[in-house]
């Protein structure tokens, strides 16, 4: 028998706006997206986490979206430990792959950067979230042409229905060509707004 699935919370960040649970937390039209992400870290994350500055832009976006979402929902430490994470995007780590390529492009100035290289995988952002919140649940990262709620919820509902976890952080995190967009939502089998693909797509479209 299938358990009922709920949307417990959501958070989205674009180049100019951050929205969490129907509330616009900040809007900024003057900054480029990199500076905007840094301002979110400084103003909305009540944590000193120097490693944030070492992350690539996609991981920063994933880290911040998860940070703000989890700050605005109630979860016990045990629930965080069991949290599963399923993310997706279109461009994988292309933005960072390009940075790395630039560091090895010139044969006469060939100094590959280890710090950039470690971020040339899209799922590293999930790793950063797991390290920060001490989460050991199942995780996966999908590359899809566009946000696909059905794909994410199929996997998430399997995890929830088989009692692998009570909470799954799902979403989209894309950085490419000077634009960033994220949309994370927490699916739960205990509380929240009743989940449907229609509901989640409506929230996504409204951002």
């Amino acid at each position, binding site marked *: 028998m299938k358990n009922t699935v709920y949307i417990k919370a959501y958070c989205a960040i674009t180049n100019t706006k951050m929205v969490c649970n129907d509330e616009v937390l900040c809007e900024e039209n003057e900054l480029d997206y990199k500076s905007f992400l840094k301002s979110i870290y400084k103003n909305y994350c009540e944590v000193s986490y120097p490693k944030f500055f*070492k992350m690539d832009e996609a991981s920063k976006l994933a880290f911040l979206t998860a940070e703000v979402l989890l700050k605005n929902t109630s979860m016990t430490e045990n629930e965080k430990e069991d949290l599963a994470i399923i993310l997706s995007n279109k461009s994988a780590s292309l933005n960072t792959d390009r940075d790395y390529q630039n560091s090895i492009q010139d044969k006469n100035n060939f100094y590959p950067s280890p*710090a950039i290289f470690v971020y040339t995988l899209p799922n590293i952002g999930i790793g950063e979230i797991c390290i920060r919140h001490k989460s050991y649940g199942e995780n996966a990262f999908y590359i899809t042409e566009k946000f696909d709620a059905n794909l994410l919820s199929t996997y998430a509902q399997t995890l929830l229905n088989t009692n692998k976890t009570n909470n799954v952080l799902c979403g989209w995190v894309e950085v490419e060509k000077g634009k960033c967009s994220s949309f994370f939502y927490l699916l739960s089998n205990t509380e929240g707004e009743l989940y449907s693909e229609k509901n989640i797509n409506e929230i996504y479209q409204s951002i």
Partner: protein
Amino acid sequence: MEALKKELKENIIEVLNLEDLTIEDVNDDDALFGDGLGLDSIDALELIVMLDKDYGIKLTDPSEGREIFKSVEVLATYITENRTK
């Protein structure tokens, strides 16, 4: 030597993205790893690249780094004795 130590502090902060720090926060004898600046293994690799790129020093034995990267003071002394550019 003082100029080199200042340059090293600036480079370390920039190369390793230590945005919360200024050169005034880094003492010459602060431990770069462990309880000092809290650098990690990827940072160590970046420092090895920095030695090669900026000072023409190639570390062939990674275990050498353990001693060389002890502090800015030790690193500056090593660079002064071994730099090729």
